[in-house]
């Protein structure tokens, strides 16, 4: 299978001649310098070395749409849990807000995901295979399993009053609860798989965050879902939404702090530039929303709505911050080379 010229024979033939040693180097006319023996001096390593500062990795081709999807997908998941709970406990406004939020999040997600493809008309190729090694394939199926019942439960909320007596509407009404419960059961998957989606890449800013990112993202999803409930439902109905949102915001802030501490060199990509600004803004919004939720939202509708909005904003900013940090970490070869060197990789093979 090897071509017409065989370097193995070339090596052998050059070994025979008296000029063999020199010829072996380049099989050319290079002379070996005498009297300058010893080991070749190695240029002392700077902090790290690179090829003209050019990136080692490709920056993700994903646009802002994927960052936005991380938020809308999380919102859909969080809202559906709130909606299903509200349905079971007879909180009508909260339920309605939850399902409409889930539907809005879901439709936005589908648009964002499909339009970010290089060939959007081929979106259905995602459904050709089910592939456990691909978080995107797993996510496609999770999202499908979530989307169908969530959409059904949400559409049941949209039936106009004058059509409610018709048999399709009554069938829909009857299916709404089981469908909603099915959606809520798959929602944790929707909320968490996106963390694996990002971490399961060579992007240092995402891959190195793999241990904590799921908690950041599910926390963010819960905060946004609960936040939407606080924004749309009256104080007396929104109690569980407040608990859910507060738990989510706490988890998001705590997990992000832990993640940040464990990131090493790559933390800088999360700290500086646009990613850093987004991250700080997210922290402020989420912390303010959390404080408002715990202290004020139980007493005043306005405070509840404001806190909910702050949590939604904090959640969205968090997703964009993580997304941007990953992008930044691919553009600078330092984030690739330094951590890989630090894990003590000795030059292989030699």
């Amino acid at each position: 299978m090897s071509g017409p010229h065989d370097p193995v024979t070339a090596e052998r033939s050059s070994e025979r001649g008296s000029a063999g040693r020199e010829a072996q180097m380049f099989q050319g006319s290079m002379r070996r310098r005498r009297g300058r023996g010893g080991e070749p001096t190695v240029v002392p390593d700077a902090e790290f070395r690179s090829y003209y500062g050019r990136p080692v990795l490709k920056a993700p081709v994903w646009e802002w749409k994927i960052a936005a999807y991380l938020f809308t997908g999380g919102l859909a998941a969080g809202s559906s849990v709130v909606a299903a709970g509200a349905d079971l406990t007879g909180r009508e406004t909260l339920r309605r807000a939850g399902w409409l939020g889930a539907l809005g999040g879901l439709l936005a997600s589908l648009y964002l995901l499909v339009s970010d493809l290089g060939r959007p008309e081929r979106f259905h190729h995602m459904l050709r295979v089910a592939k456990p090694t691909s978080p995107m394939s797993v996510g496609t199926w999770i999202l499908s399993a979530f989307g169908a019942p969530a959409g059904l439960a949400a559409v049941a909320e949209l039936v106009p009053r004058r059509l409610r007596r018709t048999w399709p509407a009554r069938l829909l009404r009857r299916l709404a609860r089981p469908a909603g419960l099915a959606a809520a059961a798959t929602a944790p998957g929707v909320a968490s798989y996106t963390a694996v989606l990002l971490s399961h890449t060579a992007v240092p800013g995402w891959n190195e965050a793999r241990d904590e990112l799921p908690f950041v993202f599910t926390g963010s999803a819960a905060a946004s879902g609960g936040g939407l409930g606080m924004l749309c439902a009256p104080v007396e109905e929104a109690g569980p939404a407040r608990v859910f949102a507060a738990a989510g915001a706490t988890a998001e802030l705590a997990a992000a702090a832990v993640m940040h501490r464990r990131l090493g060199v790559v933390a800088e990509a999360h700290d500086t530039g646009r990613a850093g600004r987004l991250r700080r803004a997210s922290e402020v919004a989420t912390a303010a929303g959390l404080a408002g939720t715990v202290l004020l939202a139980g007493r005043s509708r306005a405070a509840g709505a404001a806190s909910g909005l702050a949590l939604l904003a904090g959640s969205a900013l968090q997703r964009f911050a993580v997304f941007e940090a990953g992008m930044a970490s691919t553009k600078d070869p330092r984030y690739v080379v330094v951590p890989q060197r630090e894990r003590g990789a000795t030059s292989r093979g030699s």
Partner: protein
Amino acid sequence: MSAGRNRLAGPLDDVAGEAGHPADHPPRVGFFTDTSICIGCKACEVACKEWNDVPEDGLDLLGMSFDNTGMLGANSWRHVAFVEQPRPLGHQDPGLVGLPTGPTGDGAMTKAVQPRLRAAERGGSELGTSPLHEPEHAGRVQDLGMPAFTRPGEAAGPDGRTDVRWLMASDVCKHCTHAGCLDVCPTGALFRTEFGTVVVQQDICNGCGYCVSACPYGVIDRRPGDGRAQKCTLCYDRLRGGLEPACAKACPTDSIQYGELDELRERADRRLAQLHELGVTEARLYGRDPDDGVGGDGAFFLLLDEPEVYGLPPDPVVPTRDAVAMWRRAGAAAAAFALAGVAAFASAAFGGRR
């Protein structure tokens, strides 16, 4: 799942068989690129473009070396890197005694190029073939220390003169044993051929871009205007016709060697021993070790400096290696999320309305 963990990372004897090809599939093939005999002629780049009909990707000068390709990408499936260093190659006499020698360009190039790279939308990883602009330098001529009409090192005077060596290396898709791109492809467009190589099926790919982020070498990319992922196919069509890939065929010094992987590894080991014996102690193999983070490369290299000097990652790891751990964490996070949801409503039901 009989092999357990081994399917996600670590050495793998029969990649094509593991991928489902029948036992009588051809042996695994690959490239051994011996950069110590690369002369930087770029015939591989040209042959690849011609055979595979890879579009032109800009005819601009990058302003950093004689490399005006930049890096591998959707429109460059071979990329010849040029590295100039102020040091001799092994004990070799470059034949420059008494001549004004020194690098044609040095820190000046990097300094001029770097801020522009940072300002570029994808950090220059979109392929180095588009000129780099930085707003504050627009329209102003900046000295890159680029090759001029004077002899290299002449301007600096005798004190600044150094030894010089040129490292040239033809980079290519590594056709990893555990290929990040292949693992994450959600459509099945990327597949493992009977030769053990990794190829994108263009009629399936929908341009999701996941492979771009999953490749630890930054090889595969989405072609602008086309929207599909593109990379070296190791000339799958030529292989099926019993021919060697176009780049290997065109290489005038046999720096690019094509063949059965086992044989190439033996050949590489011999060449390494030979170079070490000659005093080129900095020679090393890259991607040959089946125990590395990607289970060894189908296309591996003999390098004369650290991999990162050539723009290669020093210790690449396929993301799939940690897939199980990542899903476990995600499962824990999902459980916590569900628990929080149940607890929120349960506390309201049992603890009274808050």
